[in-house]
């Protein structure tokens, strides 16, 4: 600290002396050149040689009267040393024996390296370091690990298909002691376990299960498998859950998978059409049958009359809408200009009809 101003000055002089420096031509000795604005004026920086406050203090601490005012009586150099040491010791005690444990944290206490217990949240006092060491571990906080870290990853299914999988594992520290002491890199271990468990589970399911209804089962199985593996390691970790964010066909196969969906919809549409046809046909048949039944009921009551009535009604309806030619003599039909008869306009055909009728 005390050498800082001097160092600065020296540095500036050095820069000034550098030939070909960025601030002006190299021939700095040539007094006719432009003056370097950064250069220190002759005689050094202003005030650089003045004693600093720390100088003063040290001087006083050494007991030298110096030019400044005298220390108050009773404060000797020895006392100053004691105060200094006292402050350092106090700071050391404050910083190493008072521990603030957050609500989500636990403090793992080691006494000369040996595990001695857990500190609950709050302000806790322990013996100072290096006797006691406290390591804070987030316990309540649920950690989220995303797999893979970027995009999707290809996973082989049991039927040798490939799916694009992305999932999240939620976990928290259950046993801070095990978490701290049993495994070297617990976070990495959880990740590796998750990948291994997920792939092992997916490898026993089929493609359709994995991208469809089987997700929940897979999630549950992976959670169980991970918990078991981590318990074997005594990792002190509780897997809260695994959630599959994405399980789909690889991007290059999306069209083919869509084609399957389209085919399914087409099949459903086909079936719907068939069902509506079926409804129509049957309803029609029932209508026809019911109509026949009604008529037949009446017919049975008076068969001959009904029959004739129907006959005449039908003839009426039919002949009323058609052109008619009545031929008196049998055998003339071949000679009739039938094609011309056809072309007779309706208006002219009408009287002809009446004539025929009166005959």
């Amino acid at each position, binding site marked *: 600290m005390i050498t800082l101003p001097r160092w600065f000055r020296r540095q500036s002089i050095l820069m000034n002396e550098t030939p070909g420096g960025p601030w002006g031509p190299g021939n700095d000795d040539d007094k006719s050149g432009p003056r370097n604005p950064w250069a220190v004026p002759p005689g050094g920086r202003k005030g650089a040689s003045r004693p600093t406050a720390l100088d003063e203090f040290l001087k006083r601490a050494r007991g030298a009267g110096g030019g400044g005012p005298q220390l108050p009586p009773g404060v000797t150099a*020895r006392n100053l040393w004691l105060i200094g040491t006292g402050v350092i010791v106090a700071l050391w005690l404050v910083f190493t024996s008072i521990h603030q444990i957050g609500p989500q944290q636990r403090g793992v206490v080691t006494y*000369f*390296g*040996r*595990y*001695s217990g857990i500190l609950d949240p709050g302000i806790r006092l322990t013996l100072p370091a*290096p006797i006691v060491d406290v390591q804070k571990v987030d316990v309540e906080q649920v950690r989220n690990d995303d797999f893979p870290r970027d995009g999707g990853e290809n996973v*082989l299914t049991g039927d*040798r*298909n*490939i799916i694009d999988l992305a999932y999240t594992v939620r976990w928290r520290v259950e046993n801070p*002691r095990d978490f701290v002491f*049993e*495994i*070297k*890199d617990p976070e990495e271990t959880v990740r*590796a*376990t998750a990948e*291994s468990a997920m*792939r*092992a589970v997916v490898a026993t399911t089929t493609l359709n299960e994995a991208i469809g209804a089987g997700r929940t089962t897979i999630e549950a199985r992976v959670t169980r498998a991970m918990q078991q*593996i981590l318990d074997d*390691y*005594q990792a002190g970790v509780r897997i809260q859950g695994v959630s599959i964010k994405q399980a789909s066909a690889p991007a*290059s*196969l999306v069209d*083919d998978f869509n084609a399957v969906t*389209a085919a399914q919809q*087409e099949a459903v549409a*086909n*079936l719907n*059409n*068939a*069902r509506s*046809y*079926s*409804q129509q046909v*049957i309803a029609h*048949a*029932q209508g*026809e*049958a019911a109509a*026949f*039944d009604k008529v*037949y009921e009446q*017919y049975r009551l008076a068969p001959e009359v009904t*029959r004739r009535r*129907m006959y005449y009604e039908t003839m009426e*309806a039919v*002949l*009323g*809408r*058609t*052109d*008619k030619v*009545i*031929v008196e003599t049998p055998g003339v039909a071949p000679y*009739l200009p*039938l094609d011309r008869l*056809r072309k007779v306009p309706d208006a002219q055909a009408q009287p002809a009809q009446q004539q025929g009728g009166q005959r």
Partner: protein
Amino acid sequence: MSLARNPIAIGFAALAAVIVAAATFAIVPETKQAVILRFENPVTTINQWQPGQVIGRNTGAGLIARIPFIDKIVWVDKRVLDADLDNTLVLSTDQLRLNVDAFARFRIVDPLKAVTSTGSTSATEERVADQLRPLLGTALRNELGKVPFSSLLTPERGDVMEAIQNSLQRNARQYGVQIVDVRIKHADLPEGSPLESALQSMRTARQQEANTIRAQGQKQAQIVRAEADATAAKIYADAFSKDADFYDFYRAMQSYRRTFGADGGPAPEGSTTILMSRDNSYLKEFEGRGK
């Protein structure tokens, strides 16, 4: 002027005391095992891992004293460590290539052996892991080479893992290592033709599925239609078989109306001219009853 009054002397004495204390006492944390070398000659191990140890109760962690400047401490991690193996190409019995990422979790249970077998006095764990990695690779290739590809994708996988673990354990004993677990992280088809052909087979499988679904749908639809026709036929037959003769007449009447457009439906396409003989039964009343 006594020594106690000379601050510089006190300072030096304190410094010397600190140095001696630091060289004598050492804190063995729960996470570390210590091998004490006396003139490079191993004397003892402290806080060595034992099965069934409970942390904080019967471990050797704590403050230890040694002979200053003579005893040297080599630290070896006590926790479960990890040896990762990435992208190992494995050939299954059916000659399918797989890219395998695997890891072994291990614990150094005999730190002395670990230190002597690797000849290291620092970073022993890393050296042990370096030694284990090729062993793990060999074990993987050997064991996975014995099974067909498909069994890697089945629960049999567990047995394969166990075989790998056992094989690795045999080789790892010389390093004072206990293999806790071996697991396959990834088992992927290598980039290029194997991956492509897998994707291709998926593609064709999808197409086949789509075609099947479509055909099944058509089949179902056809069946539904045919059933409807059959039901309709039965309804007709049930109704009309009550009087086949009357039905014939009734249906003929209906048919005439429809054919000549007299039933209120759409008009028939061709216009109709009816040529009737006067003997037609419809016209017979023109003659009058008297005839």
